[in-house]
């Protein structure tokens, strides 16, 4: 594969063509905050946490969906980016109802960890306190819209990896919601195979098995990444 020169955080690097900025960073040990990205499923640039600055381009671009180009000068840790990461994180918390004290994911939540990473001690925006439903109709799992951050990992894993296409999305803006089939209860789904892939990749306490209680949730998002990698081996 042809290699192209790029500069990331003042480091001159040689990167294979066709790589995303996120892949290039990972290969070179440069840490980038991500949320909607998960190894093994397609990237959609939904969460905007991985935004980077590229010299000569006015707007910030997501590292997960932007491919490296020759001679790009990329910055991943500027004060401006840190400011936006903190704002993005706060908006995740302000948009729905995150009550960590009563959440199954408490202590094992990618959103909590993100808050700690960006140093969020409080949210500077007013909480919206929206009315959000909890769908308990599935025999094994629960979907709690109060804790969903619309990363769409569940939607992508269900269609791309399981091939079931149970999850979809309705509405826009703050009305946006993940839906099962044609916006019917998850328990009535004719497509869900109860494989638990969505439950395992969900970064928050939005999707969880009924067997757990507060603070007891353990997720295995890497299980999907490994499965996808093994399928590619054509064993």
């Amino acid at each position, binding site marked *: 594969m042809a290699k192209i020169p790029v500069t990331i955080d003042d480091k001159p690097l040689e990167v294979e063509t066709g790589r995303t900025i996120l892949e290039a960073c990972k290969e070179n040990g440069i840490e980038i905050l991500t949320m909607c990205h998960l190894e093994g499923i397609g990237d959609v640039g939904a969460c905007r946490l991985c935004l980077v600055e590229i010299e000569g381009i006015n707007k910030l671009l997501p590292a997960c969906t932007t491919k490296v180009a020759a001679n790009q000068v990329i910055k991943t840790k500027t004060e401006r980016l840190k400011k936006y990461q903190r704002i993005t994180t706060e908006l995740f*918390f302000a948009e729905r*109802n*995150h*009550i*960590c*004290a*009563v*959440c199954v994911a*408490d*202590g094992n939540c990618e959103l*909590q960890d993100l*808050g*700690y990473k960006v*140093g*969020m*001690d*409080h*949210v*500077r925006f*007013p*909480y919206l*306190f*929206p*009315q*959000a439903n909890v769908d308990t109709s599935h025999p094994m799992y629960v979907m709690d819209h109060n804790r969903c951050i619309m990363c769409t990992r569940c939607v992508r894993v269900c269609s791309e990896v399981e091939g079931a296409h149970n999850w979809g999305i309705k509405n826009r803006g703050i009305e946006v919601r993940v839906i099962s089939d044609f916006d019917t209860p998850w328990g009535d789904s004719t497509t869900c195979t109860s494989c638990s892939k969505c439950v395992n990749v969900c970064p928050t306490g939005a999707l969880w098995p009924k067997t757990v209680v507060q*603070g007891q949730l353990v997720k295995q998002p890497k299980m999907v990444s490994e499965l996808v990698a093994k399928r590619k081996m054509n064993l």
Partner: protein
Amino acid sequence: MKKKKIGTVWLGGCSGCHMSLLDIDERILEVVKLADIVKCPIVDQKEFPQVDVALVEGSVTSDEHLHELLHVRKQATCLVALGDCAVTANVTGMRNYLKKEEVLNYAYVEAASNDKEGKMPQHPALLKLHEKVVPLQEVVHVDYVIPGCPPSADTIFYVLAELLNDRVPNLEQERKLKYG
């Protein structure tokens, strides 16, 4: 250094943050070397006095809390929001997605423990619940926040020790940030 004054108050919370404060155990002796605790929920004094540091537990859920918080703000040099309810509304904010009347009705009339004889309390001396529960920073300027439900005794002690020694605590740097 002149001895400082600390006051604590409990608004819309469960007292858990105050319990966690008590859990600093014998370290309270270090605190009282630097400051007098002049007000807390078990001090028999109506008015919240002037203090250097006010620890405020709980959210603003009613006219009474609002009135008290505005008063504490005037009296305190440094107002600290103590715990998730004060910082995010937390569990106390869970009624925000429902109508206030629904919530009261459920608690006083429909609840199973009421033997079908429950009545809505009407006494004029009772506080009046607000339609929405909000965290402290939506009402007053907050100088420092300690998230956590409850924050650990270690974290509370760390923040108090820093403030009483005229330093600015840094929860992020100390890896003491915690929600829930």
